């Protein structure tokens, strides 16, 4: 049985405002950059890109669900910010997202997926950070168990792990 637990934090109002309001300068990452949102980004914090370190992602509202995936034998719990929140924070606006992994694997995710499904940028697996050899540190994951129509290779392929960059087009 799948459970979806949405963790609503007190910053809800702030990120909604950020999403709807005019472009606003994003904080500069303090630690190592783990995710870069490039392309059509209105709130860059570096050279026309929005860089995120793990702490920035951790500060965002977290969503967490348990689902089965083709990559693990059993259902696992994934936790992280919603992808649309990340994009919103970066002021990204586009129809296609190209998710690029550490090994240069890339896949294109239609923007509708992000609006329609609670796609998360998972940073915790079973509440633990993921190492690169554990397909970490970031993993785009769809709520496969909650939405049966997602259980096919198209969506499995869109679940990019070892996520490094999102190019907004």
């Amino acid at each position: 049985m799948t459970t979806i637990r949405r963790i609503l934090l007190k910053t809800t109002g702030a990120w909604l405002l950020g999403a709807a309001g005019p472009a606003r300068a994003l904080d500069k990452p303090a630690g190592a950059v783990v995710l870069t949102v490039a392309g059509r980004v209105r709130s860059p914090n570096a050279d026309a890109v929005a860089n995120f370190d793990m702490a920035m992602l951790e500060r965002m509202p977290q969503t967490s669900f348990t689902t089965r995936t083709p990559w693990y034998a059993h259902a696992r719990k994934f936790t992280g910010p919603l992808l649309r929140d990340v994009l919103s924070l970066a002021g990204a606006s586009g129809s296609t997202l190209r998710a690029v992994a550490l090994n240069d694997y890339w896949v294109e995710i239609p923007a509708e997926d992000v609006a329609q499904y609670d796609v998360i940028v998972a940073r915790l697996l079973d509440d633990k950070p993921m190492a690169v050899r554990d397909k970490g540190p970031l993993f785009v994951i769809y709520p496969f168990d909650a939405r049966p129509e997602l259980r096919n290779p198209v969506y499995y392929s869109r679940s990019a792990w070892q996520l490094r960059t999102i190019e907004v087009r």
Partner: protein
Amino acid sequence: MATANDRSPLAPHAAAEPGARRWRATWLGAIGVSLGLALLAVALVQGRQATLLNQTVTVGDDYVVLTVYQVETEYLRLCNQWHRAIDPRIPLDRDALQLRYDIWISRIGLLHNDRTSRVMFGQADFSDTLRQIDAFIVRADELLGAKPQRPVTRDALEALEPALMALGEPTHGMSLRAAHHVGAQLAQRNVAVRQHNQVGLGLTIFLSALTLAFALISLRQMRQLEQRRAALEELAANLRVARRDAEAASEAKSMFLANMSHEIRTPFHGLMGMLSLLRETGLNPRQIDYLRTATESADHLLAILNDILDMSQLESGRMTLAAAPVDLRALLRDVESLMRPQANAKHLALHIDADPSVPDRVLADPTRVKQVVFNLLSNAIKFSDRGAVVLDLRQAEGAGGAAELEFVVSDTGIGMDDATQAALFRRFVQGDGSRSRRHGGTGLGLEISRNLARLMGGDITVRSKVGEGSAFTFRMPLQMGPEAPSTHGAAGHETVPPPRPLQVLVAEDHPVNRQYMAALLESLGHEAHFTANGEEAVEAMRYRPGGRRFDIVLMDLHMPVLDGVGATRAIRTLPDPAAATVPIVALTADAFSETRDRCLVAGMNDFLTKPVSPQKLAASLRRLFGADALAEMPIEAAPIEPLAPTGAPPFIDNAAVAMALQIMPRERLAAMIHEFLEQGPQTVQRLRAAVRDAQPLELRVNAHAARGAALNLGLAAIAATAEALHEGASHLPAHEIARLVQRFEDLLRLTLEAARAAGLGASAKPAPAAPPAPAASATG
């Protein structure tokens, strides 16, 4: 196979029907079962296809190929990075190596996945490869693991390089094997899908065929139903036509029957008239006996005709009831006067009684009520050999609480068992066969009576036990008639006095008798109207000249054209109920009870013998119209008999003259006597002609007429001679008759003299045929 249908003429192919129906039912059943099975199979196939597809999706075997290829790719990238790291010309980039190494390990992790191992397991060298890789990782992790035990140096990397290179061959083999495996699996799945498709196609064809067969059979069934419905409709139409035809035929028959019985009655009345005339022709006792039998048969036949007429009218619905105010007690008296002779003839007591609570006047059809009661009573008398017949009239409460009249006729006759009672009211059934033979009758009487009773809104029921007699109850709704002014009267006789003076129709052929009756009725204060024969009387009742309604008919029995009995019967069948129920009183010179019975049976209400005295007529009118009608007439203690009991009759009967003088002045009586005597020679001539021509009937008719008139006028000797002629006309020798005619002629003169002597001399003109006589002034 024999079924009830076989015998039905309406379904000639019915015998084949059940077989065909069973065949169709079997086929429909088989097709239904097949359809069900086929659908089940389709469901199974599709279920399996769905399972197969699901498996493909969830298992993602083909995904394994990608995984394994990525493992190989990452292996090659790691090798590349490794070679760069040990190349002394390039600076050592530990981080890049570390990342490549980690990425490769993350791919290796996928090989440990269940799914991958399921695909790859069974490949002999897969586990060896995994072990080989794991062994390398253990060694490499000393440099590049989460907790390195040694620093990453070129030498260390170089030392591990051969082991890394050794993984190339198995990793590549793994990729090939995975591709081959998935290819084989795809081929296998394709075969399965093709098989499923073929099975599905077959099933679809089968289903289509079944559906087609089903549709065809249904279509056939519908067409047959349609045909059957059309046939039934046609049959119904034919039946309707047949029923209409049958009804028309039945109605035509009823009409024919009604017309025929009506047509038969007319000549039949002539026949009966002739029979009664034949009686006057001087028959010997044996002939009289034969004639009586013939007359009885004729009466019986007439009754049957009347029954048939009634029945056919009831059946054709043309019988209508004419409700009129009826005096129930008078009606019962009429019935009693009709039935008493029959009861007397069988020595039965007859009690007719009306409960005091029964109202006097009700609304009813008197003719039909009388007919029903008469029928019940005559049955009771017919089937009783001793004891009494009782008619009780009482008021009762009907089923709906409405007031009813109950005529209960009980007898002490032979009674009936249940079966007989059940069959009683059915047509032509008369008790049982043996009874019919004993008692005669049409068997229509009770059916007619019950139908009449029901037409009135009532019914007839019966209670009976063998040997204990029967009780028939005739019920009819009680409808109150207009209230009549109550009259005091002895013995509860309360009747309505008709408007005075009564309009009296007298049917009388003899002119002297007409004058006498005119005087008599005038003296009683009534108005007399005359007709000369029965036919005229019937016409007068039918057409009511001058809009006159006659209250009573005084009917001479012996008349030319149509006699009194025939005229009475004709009047009783007139359509106008008032005319048909008019009281009729017979006037006759003979007082035989046989004659009296004949009159009553024909429907007359009373019977007066000539000479008709004012007292007798008054008493009769009182019986018919109530006490008031003649209240002022003195009633004599004893009726005056026309003939002196002993010795030769006098010329003038003083008692009769005294009676006549009660109703008319002496002058008028004298004038009438003279007129009679003046016509005497003509009578003598006719008598002589009849003797000469050997016409005994003519002789009797003339003698009878003369006798009646003579009796009324008190001319006793002439009356006696006329009677002798009447009686002897057919059997006395000619010379004896001639002597009697001569005597009659002589008496004309002698009587005239005697009349003069008695102070009844003609005041006006002397009779030319009579000897000249001194004019006598009327005294008195």
